[in-house]
């Protein structure tokens, strides 16, 4: 069935959209920026980070803008004290969960999570840090995986499967103990499926995946290729 055009309100602004579009995408087209960590344009939505939660009139639940399709007459609020408080809390939990030390990170100054923390005015973490003892996998010739900085957004998993078609990355374990892995939890350098294309590194929102040889604060990510690649290869893997 062809998509229909619907009209809705985001933060009091009237916008039109196709009814197969997700809220986050429609907001972005109208220059309304909803915070996000796991969503990246050009990949399927995962709805894991909960940064893009919005309030929708008529439901008491908060909805993730990356997994909520627009409907006719929808009234959406993207910035409210309640949303800000939840976003801050979630982000603080992410910081507390692993070892995010910006000052010595390759992505310092180029990190989605750091930007978001600054945007939300986070200057301290109210939860005790967990300080897990997590490994760094530097076995790949060109790239490094630092589990300490991984927020389990699965962007690497999705880009590898949906765009590169290699499915080298996946997630192992449960809950906070989950880890992203290459192949069957083998060292990345020994992975037979990895094509060393580097897309995972470029979409990673933090310094968890970086290029070797980059020093502190030198790892800025290039993501412009994604929309083009997605367009060239047809439908995204929203299966």
């Amino acid at each position, binding site marked *: 069935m062809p998509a229909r055009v619907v009209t809705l309100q985001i933060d009091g602004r009237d916008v039109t959209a196709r009814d197969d579009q997700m809220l986050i995408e429609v907001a972005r087209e109208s220059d309304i920026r909803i915070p996000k960590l796991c969503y990246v344009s050009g990949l399927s939505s995962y709805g894991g980070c909960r940064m893009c939660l919005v309030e929708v009139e008529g439901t008491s639940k908060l909805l993730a803008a990356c997994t909520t399709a627009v409907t006719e007459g929808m009234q959406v609020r993207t910035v409210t004290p309640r949303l800000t408080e939840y976003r801050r809390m979630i982000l603080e939990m992410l910081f507390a969960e692993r070892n995010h030390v910006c000052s010595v990170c390759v992505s310092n100054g180029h990190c989605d999570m750091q930007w978001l923390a600054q945007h939300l005015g986070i200057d301290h973490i109210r939860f005790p840090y967990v300080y897990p003892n997590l490994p760094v996998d*530097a076995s790949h010739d060109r790239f490094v995986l630092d589990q300490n900085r991984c927020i389990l957004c699965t962007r690497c998993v999705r880009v590898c499967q949906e765009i590169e078609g290699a499915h080298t990355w996946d997630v192992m374990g449960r809950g906070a103990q989950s880890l992203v892995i290459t192949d069957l939890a083998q060292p990345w350098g020994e992975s037979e499926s990895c094509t060393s294309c580097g897309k995972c590194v470029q979409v990673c929102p933090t310094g968890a995946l970086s290029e070797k040889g980059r020093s502190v604060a030198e790892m800025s990510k290039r993501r412009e290729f994604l929309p083009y690649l997605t367009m060239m290869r047809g439908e995204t893997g929203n299966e």
Partner: protein
Amino acid sequence: MSQRIVIDPVTRIEGHAKVTIQLGDDGQVADARLHITQLRGFEKFCENRPFYEMPSLMARICGICPVSHLIASSKACDAILGVNIPPNAARLRRIMNLAQILQSHALSVFHLSSPDLLLGMDSPPENRHIFGVAAVAPEVARDGIRLRQIGQQIIEMLGGKRIHPAWVVPGGVSSPLAEEKRDHIQAMLPDGIAALQRTLDRFRGLFQRFPEEMASFANFPSLFLGLTDGSGKLEYYDGPLRIVGADGAVVADHLRAQDYPDYMSEVAEDDSYLKSAFYKPLGYPDGIYRVGPLARLNLVTNCGTPLADHELGLLRTFAGSPLLGSFHYHHARLIEMLHVIERMHELLSDPDVLSPHVRAFAEPNCEEGVGMSEAPRGTLLHHYKVDRNGLMRWANLIIATGHNNLAMNRGVKQAATYFVRDGKLSEGALNRVEAVVRAFDPCLSCSTHAIGQMPLDIDLRDASGALLDNCRRG
């Protein structure tokens, strides 16, 4: 507009220390010890991190001398990469290291020690700070603040920020020097020279008003250790190590950083988290040596720049050579400041300083690397071992303050013996015991990485160990 200035805590040393003075049966000082009461965990928590994080991580050891750690750490990383860095990268690192020495020495001389020198060792403690100095000698305080500012601004212009710049990286530096920044730095240097000449003219005579302190502040024979340029001139960035004796004779020369376990060793003592380094062939504690400004001036034939050489000549004429009293550290620091400005001017005058070729790239080719350089307080050594992927397996840091630990302890005892009389601690005596430590300009946060804030604390104990008196600052 109202202004609020808070001074808290007042310590005038970098970091946190405690002194214990032990009295014998006769009521005289039998022993005195300097305890560094905080633990440094850097060698341990860097394990399993990628080696290329080390310069930035190790720089966090200190907020005063991050550049020194950046330099030593990057040199260790260069050795792990197995590369010779481009000549201009070395030149730019050298300039930043010199700027670091300028700003740190300014802090030590003006902010921390000049209150003792200008106001007197017995002046009221509440006035002994840079604002106290500004009240009686505003031009001195202004010069000190300006000199520190020049050093800090050069660091910022090179590295993008004053504290913990990430610009010094394994293989070189991350960006070349722009012409306008070079010109800006050059334009600041004459100001620094003028400020130092004013200060030296004033302090040369001032130092002579402290004969007791000169005689009793760690004034004893020891070895002196530091880098030279290979021909006997001052060197801070890279060069062979030289050791001279108390008579000025060269004990060892052209020592290489990577061979340090052959000639340098450390012991941990029960009452301090700061290890004591000693010259291995003489053993512990006979292998006592000093590092830092005084040691460097004792072991070179000359500085290598005209103004500093003139000042060194005056000092040697007045006080002899080598200088054994640690009170002369202050004077040595001023001469070094003059030298580093002259040296920066030389380096910046080289047209190649604008060369864009400032970085070598390589994979880790060696599993071990040692980096050695001169920090403001003395020789700094970083030694790393990595696995074949470049992840840190082991690290050892020998910090300037550790080299000086044996000498500081002996100096504290010497001063305590001289100034603590009849089992009582006077305010002036307390300050002099502190001032011995201050003369070395120890960076206790560097040497142990301090957590929390604890001011200098002195216990006076009798032969049975019972507490007789205690003085506490802060």
